[in-house]
């Protein structure tokens, strides 16, 4: 007879390590959103106009929208393979809080999707002749914003994991919740270009992230339970 014995840190660390190992062994899946991001941004100057002034004015929104869609693309696979091979039901039966284990999975998703997107964005910003001085703000706002996007998106991914083709439904579910992040993220970069204060925008992005960090893990856990029940 065993009493519950804790060991939550052990479980979280092992889950982080497992997901990182798995993702790094499937490099194609990690690269997909980054390639998508690069392709979209490369096509815009060709399709619209190479005029630097025009591009600079739409660059913040463009970079943010493309990064958001790239992050969205990668979400569907977050719980999919675990669901297919039965690891997800084992995760749900672990004597550990599911919210914490779900958070570990989301953290890996952000590390391998959101963070690389944020680091790549300044490079692509050059192609859109993004004015100097806004590059750091672009990377920072994306790093903060994509963390919220990963957390919110994971709720949708958890809800749709039981469906055979949940991709479209997932987008419809989470896009409305992505809009505040998009507004304040792109707003921060705009403000940096016009030399206005960026603190307010970044503070709101931080607040959104704090809120998502607090609520999303519970919502993810509940959604996973619903999906497994179905």
């Amino acid at each position, binding site marked *: *007879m*065993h009493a519950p*014995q804790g060991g939550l840190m*052990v*479980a979280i660390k*092992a889950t982080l390590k497992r997901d990182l*190992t798995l993702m790094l062994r499937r490099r194609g899946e990690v690269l997909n959103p980054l390639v998508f991001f690069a392709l979209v941004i490369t096509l815009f100057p060709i399709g619209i106009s190479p005029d630097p002034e025009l591009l600079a004015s739409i660059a913040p929104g463009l970079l943010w929208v493309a990064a958001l869609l790239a992050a969205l693309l990668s979400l569907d696979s977050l719980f999919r393979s675990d669901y297919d*091979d039965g690891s997800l039901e084992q995760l749900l*039966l*672990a004597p550990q809080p599911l919210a914490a284990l779900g958070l570990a999975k989301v953290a890996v998703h952000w590390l391998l999707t959101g963070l690389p997107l944020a680091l790549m964005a300044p490079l692509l910003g050059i192609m859109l002749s993004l004015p100097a001085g806004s590059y750091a703000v672009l990377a920072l706002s994306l790093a903060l914003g994509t963390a919220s996007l990963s957390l919110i998106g994971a709720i949708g991914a958890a809800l749709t994991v039981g469906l055979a083709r949940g991709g479209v439904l997932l987008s419809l579910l989470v896009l409305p919740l992505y809009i505040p992040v998009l507004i304040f993220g792109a707003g921060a970069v705009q403000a940096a270009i016009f030399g206005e204060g960026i603190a307010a925008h970044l503070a709101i992005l931080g607040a959104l992230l704090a809120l998502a960090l607090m609520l999303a893990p519970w919502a993810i856990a509940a959604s996973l339970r619903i999906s497994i029940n179905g």
Partner: protein
Amino acid sequence: MSLCLQARQLACERDDRWLFEGLDLDIQSGEIVRIEGPNGSGKTTLLKILSGQLTDYRGELYWNGEPMRQAREHFLANLLYLGHAPGVKAGLSPLENLAWYQALSGEKGSEPAREAALAAVGLAGFEDVPAGQLSAGQQRRVALARLTLTQRALWVLDEPFTAIDRQGVAALEAQLVAHAQSGGCVLVTTHHALTESPVLRRIQLG
């Protein structure tokens, strides 16, 4: 201390059809209980309900006399469930798979212990091969290695003999009997005749 899982007036409906109704169950230490019934009679559903995965049922579940809702954490710390899907990650080696399962229950475990568990299920020499390259039977064996590795009292096994060869079946059956005799209990569905089990109890569905 003996443990027991009780179900009272358990009923489950699927697609306007009662899979089972008014089911009373007592599973005690030292027992092997086999759920029997034709395909589609609700064996897997019953196991999922009894292992706390499905909430879509009527009736009450008790773990050591306490309602399942309150005893859930304690119950999960004593449960080892193996479902239809073995839960083995194709991209990880058998050793890495087992390490994650050990960590989920809060134990760090040790590499020699995991290697010994794999050797016990006949997978010595396959420790570092990606599980995706193993055969279906070998993947099932990786999952079964958790029976040796993790000390849990209640085993809930859904068709554990699937894809396992004849020697493996005999060894697994002996392991189930040994577990029951040492005070654990086993809840199993299988179409395989459990001939070696002296303490077998049957529950018929459908």
